């Protein structure tokens, strides 16, 4: 009888060893994330109080003298600007992604792909400058709208890419089935491919959204910042508006201890904002209908 080179036991040991390596690398990935979350929470929790969620920021002397100050206008502003960015970027990004995946032989596609990749690699601050030149200058004022556009420039290439790969993952046979029953090509895409790729699409949107939600650079010269709510609600869109990442930055570089703590607290809020988005995304896309 030939003795096998490796016994079952040996194989099992080797298998466990490889698995433990995988576990280890997962831990290595997760640990920094947990450290960041823990660090932000430890530093910021002292500044988290009721007023933080109900008051406007005002001047630094408010914080130093212990008068009520908070970031409610910043949180609402973030929601408005990010929401604007989302409704601007989804139609464009989705369109570009569909074009890349469903019409692969269109002669514009190579250029579209190059432009998209360039846009994706471009530093975010340049996208802010672009929005500054295109919207802020002609309008004569900084605005939430321009901030939304700047963030949309961040999101569009990511959405286009993720849409493309989500649609590509749908087998060609489904398209052929649709065409076989006489549907026009656009109808095949809209009624079968896009719904089938729903999970991937929404995940892509949210990854892009989370990425944009953390960007401060493109907002510096677009949404600009505001220490208060605007006097009229349209000011959120057509006037300067505060956003969490940018306010976090300006709080962090300020010379006041109280503002540093508020900066950390803003970090907590931003973190949970992004986590909440991902969580919602998971809930929305969990149920597979097909």
């Amino acid at each position, binding site marked *: 009888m030939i003795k096998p080179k490796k016994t079952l036991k040996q194989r099992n040991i080797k298998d466990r060893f490889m698995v433990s390596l995988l576990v280890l690398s997962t831990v290595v990935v997760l640990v920094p994330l947990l450290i960041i979350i823990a660090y932000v929470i430890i530093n910021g929790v002292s500044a988290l109080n009721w007023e933080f969620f109900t008051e406007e920021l005002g001047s630094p002397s408010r914080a130093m003298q212990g008068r009520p100050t908070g970031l409610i206008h910043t949180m609402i502003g973030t929601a408005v600007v990010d929401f604007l960015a989302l409704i601007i970027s989804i139609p464009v990004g989705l369109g570009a992604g569909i074009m890349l995946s469903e019409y692969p032989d269109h002669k514009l596609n190579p250029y579209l792909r190059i432009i998209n990749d360039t846009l994706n690699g471009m530093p975010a601050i340049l996208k802010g400058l672009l929005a500054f030149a295109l919207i802020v200058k002609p309008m004569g004022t900084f605005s939430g709208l321009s901030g939304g556009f700047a963030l949309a420039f961040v999101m569009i290439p990511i959405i286009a890419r993720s849409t493309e790969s989500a649609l590509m993952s749908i087998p060609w046979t489904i398209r052929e089935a649709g065409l076989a029953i006489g549907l026009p090509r656009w109808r095949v895409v809209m009624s079968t491919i896009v719904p089938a790729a729903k999970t991937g699409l929404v995940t892509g949107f949210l990854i892009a959204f989370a990425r944009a939600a953390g960007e401060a650079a493109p907002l510096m010269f677009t949404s600009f910042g505001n220490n208060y709510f605007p006097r009229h*609600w349209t000011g959120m869109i057509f006037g300067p508006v505060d956003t969490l990442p940018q306010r976090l930055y300006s709080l962090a570089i300020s010379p006041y201890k109280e503002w540093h703590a508020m900066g950390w607290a803003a970090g907590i809020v931003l973190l949970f904002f992004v986590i909440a988005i991902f969580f919602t995304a998971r809930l929305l896309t969990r149920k597979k209908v097909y």
Partner: protein
Amino acid sequence: MKINFIKTFSLILVTGMILLTAGCGEGREKDDSDDTKKERKSRVDLLGAGASFPAPLITAMADEYRDVTRNRVVVNYQSIGSGGGIRQFVEQTIMFGMTEAFLSDEIMADIESQTGGRAFNMPITLADVVATYNVPGVDKGIVFDADVLVDIYMERITNWNDPKIEKLNPDKDLPSLPITVVHRSDGSGTTNIWTSYFSRVSDEWKAKIGYGTSVNWPTGVGGNGNEGVAGAVMNTPGAIGYNSLTYALLNDMSFGYVKNSSGNIIEPSYAATTEAANIDLPEDTRVLFTNTPAEKGYPIAGFAWMLVYENLEQNNAINNRTEAKELVEFLIWSITDGQELSEELGFARLPEAAVERNYEMIKQVKWRGEEIGKELLKKKNIS
């Protein structure tokens, strides 16, 4: 399947909408109780940006002014640095700028040719720059004079026990410790004041390096912003840097006294800074008074200016007469009642001479030819 997909989006859409209306609704409801309808119509947001040094004062003024106007006028001031303030003012994206370095002749000429009117530099408060240091065992109050500071920044004095420093500080026990020079790496009004002092007191510095919001430093390490310089100074034994007085006080940094041009040793203080500005001012107040001739004045100080167009309608950021009028009213308030906030916040009060000059400039401010500055001053019984 398709319906689900649409649902997903409408949910995001609706969530966004709710957040939007919630945010706006809140602001509106709060005001409904004490605002009349007429007042709500005339509510105005004013937007200014620029120098970080006067930001605590301007934003505190904004808080106060909002109360004074019963929530009607809100001044949003963002601190983006003097350079940014000038830039955005020229780009006409803000209603007023703030800077610690007055507009250059070129920019003034450009603005005049573009808008058919001048740009005014109106002093709002005073900026003072102190030499901050980290010398173990020595608290605040090392005495410097102009030569010593220039020599340190030109790398001619490299140790804290240099005879030149010891001569000025006979009662201090200075260690033998190499000096690390720290300066700002970003464009800054603080640098402008600091280097203009050096240029005034040293011909060599003037010829070789000159002054400006950023210069070609002969030596030293750079720090970004007041906080960058402060961080480098506090973490490096033997370091010397420069910060605004308020910043040094807020962060418990040691800072030096300076011998002024009259030979008096001056401890940096708000009174000494106001004193320094007590000089003959030119009409447009574009003047540096570093190395002030005032006897009791602290020699490293300057104005922080508010930038305003003469013809307000030419500024793209100002949309209507109401905004222009409210801007001028805030300006008048900030140099009169608003000054009351100064000392409490660590700022030097504007000297009377500067306020007078401001009145002269405000009188010339117009909206479509209408002299709104003059009218508003008259309404406040200032002429």
